[in-house]
């Protein structure tokens, strides 16, 4: 369908697609097998300016928004979610600086991030703080002109590979949710190390590790926003980035769908290509329809965010929820359409199905997205009375 993209947006889509087809598709199975971090592809993305998409021009970026980022993420995801997760998590980690950073912080970090010279990660989750960020135990204590950080973050995408980490830590436990703050920590800071690299079901090219802080001292100026704003920073960050996870869903679903159609046209049983059977056609019809619906929603929410709307929690949660549930369903059905072949590693859909599952879990599980939408509804309907 025509989404009336601008000439520049089409240019971005075409370039991301070219990179996906020429540089990612040929190596995705191997990356999945080895779990090797896709540095070569990151270099290509950097050279193509894609890391700078959503960063303002004054900091060396292209000054585009959520829609352009979503378009690029969608195209990369069509080829490989492991690679696109690496790229999207970089944006996730950058948003705290972009949304709440001081001019100095932006000048210090954003140009390198835009150029793809330094990769970023976002560290919120801990062993006892998953869906419930309130369980955060990592602390940051002010001593003179330094914060001393102690604690362990887990399952952090781009951990170990990124140079810059934006993290949430408790600065004043007595203040409850208002006692958390956001910080930027650079790789190599004494007292900051990485734990084991996780062995995952899918998105295996993406690195997921622990961040271990043991009396890690950082300059006082590394706080992002003010003390006590940690959870605000985290929530606003997720509001901005969730649509990107939705875009990942659109992309992986599209990729799996295309494989399924191609296969169904070629595979002959009972003397006919299986696509001629109505049961198969209906599955493909549902897949195509739900992909188009999630793309329409993701693009609409991205445009809404880019319009400067203030409260986008509900809409961004909707785009993530819908598009990633669709992705799980479509990738599963793609395997079904392809039968036993779909289950084999010779074809990419088994990987897509394994990869898709993460989209319903990270950046807030889809249960949590429903909670966010539900709470927004209660607020809306209370106001209306």
């Amino acid at each position, binding site marked *: 369908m025509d989404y009336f993209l601008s000439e520049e947006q089409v240019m971005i889509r075409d*370039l991301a697609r070219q990179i996906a087809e020429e540089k990612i598709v040929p190596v995705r199975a191997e990356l999945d097998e080895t779990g090797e971090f896709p540095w070569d592809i990151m270099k290509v993305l950097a050279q193509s300016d894609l890391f700078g998409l959503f960063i303002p021009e004054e900091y060396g970026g*292209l000054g585009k928004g959520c829609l352009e980022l979503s378009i690029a993420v969608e195209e990369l995801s069509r080829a490989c979610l492991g690679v696109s997760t690496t790229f999207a998590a970089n944006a996730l980690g950058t948003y705290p600086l972009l949304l709440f950073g001081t001019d100095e912080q932006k000048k210090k970090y954003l140009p390198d991030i835009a150029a793809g010279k330094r990769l970023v990660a976002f560290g919120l989750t801990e062993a006892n703080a998953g869906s419930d960020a309130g369980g955060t135990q990592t602390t940051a204590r002010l001593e003179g002109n330094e914060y001393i950080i102690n604690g362990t973050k887990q399952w952090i995408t781009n951990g170990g590979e990124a140079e810059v980490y934006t993290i949430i830590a408790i600065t004043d436990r007595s203040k409850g949710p208002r006692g958390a703050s956001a910080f930027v920590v650079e790789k190599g800071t004494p007292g900051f190390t990485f734990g084991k690299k996780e062995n995952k079901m899918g998105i295996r090219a993406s690195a997921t590790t622990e961040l271990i802080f043991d009396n890690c001292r950082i300059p006082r100026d590394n706080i992002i926003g003010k003390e006590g704003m940690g959870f605000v920073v985290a929530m606003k960050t997720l509001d901005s980035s969730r649509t990107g996870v939705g875009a990942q869903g659109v992309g992986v679903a599209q990729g799996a769908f295309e494989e399924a159609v191609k296969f169904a046209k070629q595979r002959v049983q009972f003397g006919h290509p299986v696509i001629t059977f109505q049961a198969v056609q209906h599955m493909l019809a549902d897949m195509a329809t739900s992909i188009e619906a999630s793309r329409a929603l993701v693009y609409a929410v991205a445009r809404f965010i880019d319009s400067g709307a203030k409260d986008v929690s509900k809409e961004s949660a909707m785009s993530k929820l819908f598009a990633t549930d669709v992705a799980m369903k479509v990738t599963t059905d793609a395997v079904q359409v392809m039968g036993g072949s779909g289950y084999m590693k010779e074809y990419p859909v088994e990987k897509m199905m394994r990869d898709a599952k993460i989209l319903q879990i990270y950046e807030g599980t889809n249960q949590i997205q429903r909670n966010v939408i539900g709470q927004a509804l209660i607020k809306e309907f209370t106001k209306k009375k």
Partner: protein
Amino acid sequence: MKIIVCIKQVPDTAEVRINPETNTLIRDGVPSIINPYDMHAIEAGLHIKEKAGGNVTVITMGPPQAETALREAISMGVDSAVLLTDRAFAGSDTWATAYTLAKAIEYLGADIILCGKQAIDGDTAQVGPEIAEFLDIPHISYIRKIDEIKDNKIVVQRLMDDGYDVIESSFPVLLTVVKELNVPRLPSIKGKMAAKKAVIQKMNAADIKADENCLGLKGSPTQVRNIFAPEVKKDRIMLEGTTEEKVTALVNELMRLKCL
């Protein structure tokens, strides 16, 4: 460092059809691309610029449509583009093509000139070395690696059938490149935006002060009689041993071939 890359727009297929009556290439209906070897030449130009500074200009001789090839090169990051276009250029053989390109390069000035090894349609691999001869400068063909680049010299590896040569040259120099040299980069978004806006400098025969008698069909000495792929002879023998043994073996071989 002033770098000029010569690129040719070619039909997007290795299977070029040939009109049997005129013995010329049939180009209608085939989408055009930058000659694949020239993509490696562009990458080499950008690489040299990144290493040694300077600027990269792409140049092509062709019809007005060849502008697309130049814009594509700009999207990869080259600084400027020149289109040599003039009715008088039509029908050029390799001699006239090289003459015309050489006149333009003489006019523009360059320290390093890069060409592809050959064009995938014409396939002669003559244009690069011929340009160097017209300019009376050294050339090194089949570059597979750039070892060193300094203010006053370049050291490169030339691919040979049985290994490679290491060659050093002063500037200006013309290099023709093979695929082993590098992986051409994809365009960038900033490059694509620049390509859209870029002004392509157009030059005709008068601009480059070319001798009309050397241009186009009129200036082309080649008469195409027949086109065929030359047979590759793989029956070479390397003689081993002491000098005496080798001479004996050589004499025996020449006698066997009835040359002696």
